[in-house]
C-alpha cells in the first residue's frame, strides 16, 4: 500500500488515443518526492533536448504534489511541467484550486500527455473510467465557460476542470491553463496544451487518500492550524500589509493599490508615478473593488482567502487572485475598474496576467515609436482602453499584428526588427517579468533574478525580509520568534543589516551571506513544489507555518518515507539540480542568467560577477552555471553527468570543482 501518493500515473497518447494506468516506482518518491521532482525526472528521461515545444514528443505533465489530498492544510497545488515555447526551457507553472486533490481521490498522482490529437478533445477522468471525448463544440469557448459546459454535459457538478481558452488553442506563447479561481500561467504551458489538441481535463474522484501514521500526521496538522490562527491574529509589524500576513499577498482583501501604483512601473514597465495617488482615487478605487468583489474565496482545504469572486455589471462573473488586479490597469495607464473588467475577458481567453498586459503595452509603444506602422496596426481604435481590448482580441486569435505579439515581447521584437528589441526590456530568459524598476542593486534579489528557473521572482523570494528594518529594536523583535530559520546565523544576518552605512546594500549582506539566504529561500520553494504545498503558507511569506523543521515530519508521517532535514534538503537539491540539468542540456548558460539591464539604476558589475561566481561554486556548479560531475555524483545524478560528458557539455576535466571551493553540503 502507498501512502499520501496513490502510486499510479495515467499515460495518455493523444496521437493514438491510447490510455494506460501505470504503477510508479516508490524508490523515485524517496529520491525526488513528487510533483515537480518526479516531473523533472520524467522530462529528463523522456524529452531529449532536440525536442521542440510544439513537437508530439514533448510531454505535458499534470502532477499533484506528494502531500496533495492529505489533510495538510493548503496542500492543493497542481504542478504542470513541459518545455516552454517562450523560454525553450523547462516550464513548471503551477496552480492551486481543487484539481490536484481531486486527481488523487480519483486514484492518480500524475497525468502524462504525449503526442497530438488530430481533433480537439478533452480528457474525462472519473475514478477508473478514463476517456477522451470530442471537444469540437468547445472550440473557441472561454476557459471558464468550457468548465461549466463540461460539468453540465457530464452531469457532474463536482468535477474539477482545468481548461484552456482561445489563447491556448491558438498557441499564444503566454497562454495559461485556467481552473476556476486558479491558473497555471507562466511559460506558455497553455500553448502546449492547445498544440496537443487538448481543450480540458475534467476529473472526479471518490477514493481514499491514505496516511502512513495518522495520529502523528494529524498532530502536525493541528499545530499548523493553531499557528495559522496565531499569525492571522498577529501580523508582522513594520512591513507593508500584504507582506504582514500569510497566504498569497492579500491583494483581494487589502486596499494596497497606493503602494503598488506608486512603486511598480506603468505602461510597458516604463513609468513610475510617485505622485499618482490622491484622495479621490483612493475613494474611487476602494468603491470599485468593494462593489465588484462579491466574496473572498479559497483553494481546497485552506483557510486563507487569497482569491475573490468579481462581478462587474454587464459581464459574466469570474474569479481572480493576487496581482492581476492591477497589471492591466497599470499597463494601460487606466483605473481599477478597467483592470477588473478586461481581466474577465483575459481569464476566459486564458492568458498570463503578468505577460499579456506588458505585451500589449509593448505593442502600443512600438506603434508610438513608429516601429510598428499604422498599417501594421490597421483597425486600432482611438480610445486608450479600447486599444487594449482590440489588441487582446488580435493576440488570442493570432490575427494581423496579434500573430506577432502572441509570441511575447522577446520573439516579437526579433520578428519586427527595426530596433524593437530595445522595447522588450523587461525579460529574463526571454520571459516578461514583474514591472519593477528600482534604484540600488539588491544583491539577494540579483542572485534570485539571475539564477531562478521558475522565471518569476515570487517563486523564489520569501522567508527573509525584502529590506532591512530601520531600528535595532525592530530587528531584535523580529528574530525573537523566528524559529523557521534553518540555522541561527540567519538571525545575525538580519540583526546586523542596516538601511544605510557600512552594513547596508549592496555590500551587506556579504556575498557569502547572500548565497546562504538565496539558497534557503529557493530550497523552500522547491520543497513546496514537490509536495504541492501553496507557497502562501510556506516559502513566500515571512514566518510561515510550514518550514524545514516540520516538513520532514509531515513527509515521514504522511508518506511513510524515512525523512529528516538533511535528507529532505538533499532531495530538494537533487531535483533542483535536475531542473537545471534539463535547461543546461537545452543550452542555458551563464550568459542567460541576468536580470533586465535597467532593473536597477545603480549597478555594480564587479560585485555582481563575484556574487554569481560564488553562488555557482556554492551550488556545486562550474563557472558557466553547469552542475559539476562531483556535485552530480554526490546527488546520485551520475546519469546526468554521463549525459553531459557524452554531449560535450562537461569534459571529465572541466567538470571538476576548482580546488578548495566551498561546495554546499
Amino acid at each position, binding site marked *: 500500500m502507498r501512502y499520501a501518493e496513490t502510486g499510479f500515473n495515467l499515460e495518455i497518447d493523444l496521437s493514438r488515443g491510447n490510455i494506460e494506468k501505470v504503477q510508479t516506482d516508490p524508490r523515485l518518491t524517496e529520491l525526488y518526492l513528487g510533483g515537480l521532482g518526479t516531473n523533472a525526472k520524467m522530462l529528463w528521461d523522456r524529452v531529449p533536448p532536440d525536442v521542440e515545444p510544439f513537437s508530439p514528443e514533448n510531454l505535458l505533465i499534470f502532477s499533484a504534489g506528494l502531500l496533495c489530498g*492529505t*489533510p495538510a492544510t493548503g496542500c492543493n497545488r497542481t504542478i504542470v511541467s513541459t518545455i516552454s515555447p517562450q523560454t525553450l526551457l523547462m516550464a513548471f507553472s503551477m496552480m492551486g484550486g*481543487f484539481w490536484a486533490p481531486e486527481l488523487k481521490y480519483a486514484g492518480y498522482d500524475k497525468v502524462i500527455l504525449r503526442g497530438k490529437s488530430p481533433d480537439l478533445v478533452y480528457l474525462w477522468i472519473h475514478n477508473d473510467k478514463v476517456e477522451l471525448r470530442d471537444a469540437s463544440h468547445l472550440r473557441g469557448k472561454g476557459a471558464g465557460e468550457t468548465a461549466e459546459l463540461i460539468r453540465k454535459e457530464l452531469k457532474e457538478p463536482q468535477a474539477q476542470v482545468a481548461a484552456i481558452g482561445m489563447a491556448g488553442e491558438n498557441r499564444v506563447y503566454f497562454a495559461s491553463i485556467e481552473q*476556476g479561481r486558479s491558473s497555471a500561467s507562466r511559460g506558455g504551458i497553455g500553448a502546449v496544451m492547445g498544440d496537443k489538441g487538448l481543450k480540458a481535463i475534467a476529473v472526479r474522484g471518490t477514493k481514499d487518500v491514505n496516511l502512513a501514521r*495518522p495520529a502523528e500526521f494529524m498532530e502536525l496538522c493541528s499545530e499548523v*492550524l493553531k499557528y495559522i490562527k496565531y499569525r*492571522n491574529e498577529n501580523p508582522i509589524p513594520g512591513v507593508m500589509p500584504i507582506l504582514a500576513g500569510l497566504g498569497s499577498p492579500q491583494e483581494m482583501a487589502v486596499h494596497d493599490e497606493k503602494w503598488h501604483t506608486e512603486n511598480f512601473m506603468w505602461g510597458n514597465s516604463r513609468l513610475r508615478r510617485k505622485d499618482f495617488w490622491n484622495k479621490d482615487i483612493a475613494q474611487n478605487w476602494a468603491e470599485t473593488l468593494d462593489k465588484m468583489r462579491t466574496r473572498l474565496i479559497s483553494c481546497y482545504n485552506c483557510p486563507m*482567502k487569497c482569491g475573490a469572486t468579481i462581478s462587474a455589471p454587464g459581464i459574466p462573473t*469570474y*474569479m481572480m487572485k493576487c496581482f492581476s488586479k492591477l497589471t492591466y490597469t497599470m499597463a494601460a495607464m487606466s483605473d481599477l475598474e478597467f483592470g477588473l473588467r478586461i481581466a474577465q475577458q483575459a481569464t476566459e481567453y486564458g492568458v498570463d496576467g503578468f505577460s499579456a498586459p506588458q505585451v500589449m503595452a509593448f505593442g502600443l509603444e512600438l506603434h508610438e515609436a513608429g516601429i510598428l506602422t499604422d498599417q501594421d496596426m490597421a483597425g486600432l481604435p482611438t480610445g486608450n482602453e479600447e486599444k487594449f481590448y482590440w489588441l487582446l482580441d488580435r493576440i488570442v486569435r493570432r490575427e494581423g499584428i496579434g500573430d506577432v505579439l502572441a509570441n511575447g515581447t522577446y520573439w516579437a521584437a526579433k520578428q519586427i526588427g527595426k530596433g524593437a528589441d530595445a522595447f522588450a526590456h523587461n525579460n529574463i530568459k526571454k520571459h516578461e517579468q514583474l514591472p519593477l524598476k528600482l534604484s540600488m542593486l539588491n544583491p539577494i534579489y540579483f542572485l534570485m533574478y539571475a539564477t531562478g528557473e521558475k522565471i518569476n521572482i515570487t517563486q523564489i523570494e520569501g522567508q527573509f525580509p525584502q529590506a532591512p528594518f530601520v531600528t535595532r529594536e525592530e530587528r531584535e523583535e523580529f528574530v525573537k520568534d523566528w524559529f523557521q530559520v534553518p540555522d541561527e546565523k540567519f538571525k545575525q544576518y538580519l540583526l546586523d543589516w542596516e538601511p544605510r552605512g557600512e552594513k547596508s546594500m549592496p555590500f551587506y549582506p556579504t556575498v557569502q551571506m547572500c548565497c546562504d539566504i538565496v539558497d534557503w529561500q529557493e530550497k523552500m520553494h522547491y520543497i513546496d513544489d514537490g509536495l504541492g504545498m501553496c507557497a502562501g503558507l510556506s516559502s513566500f511569506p515571512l514566518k510561515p507555518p510550514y518550514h524545514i523543521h516540520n516538513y520532514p515530519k509531515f513527509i515521514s508521517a504522511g508518506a511513510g518515507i524515512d525523512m529528516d532535514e538533511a535528507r529532505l534538503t538533499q532531495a530538494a537539491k537533487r531535483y533542483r539540480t535536475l531542473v537545471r540539468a534539463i535547461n543546461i542540456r537545452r543550452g542555458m548558460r551563464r550568459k542567460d542568467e541576468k536580470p533586465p539591464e535597467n532593473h536597477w539604476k545603480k549597478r555594480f558589475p564587479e560585485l555582481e560577477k563575484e556574487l554569481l561566481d560564488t553562488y555557482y561554486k556554492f551550488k556545486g556548479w562550474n563557472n558557466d552555471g553547469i552542475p559539476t560531475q562531483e556535485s552530480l555524483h554526490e546527488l546520485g545524478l551520475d546519469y546526468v553527468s554521463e549525459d553531459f560528458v557524452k554531449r560535450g557539455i562537461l569534459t571529465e576535466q572541466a567538470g571538476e570543482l576548482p580546488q578548495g571551493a566551498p561546495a554546499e553540503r
Partner: protein
Amino acid sequence: MGEKKKKIIKTIKVDVDKCNGCRACEMICSAFHSVPKYSGNNPARSRIRVIREPLKDIYVPVYAGENAKAECMGRDKYVIDGKEYDECAFCRASCPSRDIFKEPDSGLPLKCDMCESDPTLEKPLCVQWCLVDALTYEEREEEVEEEVKLDDVETGLDSLVAKHGLQKVLDTFARMSQKGVEQPGEK
C-alpha cells in the same frame, strides 16, 4: 402528564456568508470517520458537504440527516438576496435524487453524528477546522417535557393487533414462546 427534563441540544450554526468554499470540513469529516481513525480521507464519504456554485456565489455547508427512501415530488426554489437556491441545497437527507451523503462504495446512507467519540471532542471537527467561522458550535440547554411514548415493540404490536385482532396475536405469541424461538444475540 410527562416529566420535565433538561436536555443538551447540540447545534452547528452555519453562516453561509462567511464560507470560503475550501471544503476543509468535508475533508476532516471523512478523515475522522475513516477506520482506523484518520487513516485516510475522502470527501465523497463526508457527512457534511458544501453545496458550491462559485459563479453564482452560492456556498451552503449542509449536514447529513435522515435517509429518505423516496425523492420529493416537488422541489422548490428559494431566492435569497437575489440568489436562487434549489431546495436541495438546504436539505439534509440522503435520498435517491442525489449522490451526496452516501458511501461511494456501498451506496449506504451517511448521517452526521456530531463526531461522537470517546473521549468526547470539545467541538465537532468540521467546526474546529473552519477557521473562517462559517461553522460555529453551540450547545443550548432546553427543558423538554418527556411524554410517555410507546416504545418500538409496543408500536409494532399495536399495528399487528389492529390488523389481526388481539386474540390471534396472543395465540401466535404463546405458540412462539413454546417453540423456543431463537433470541437475538444467541447463536
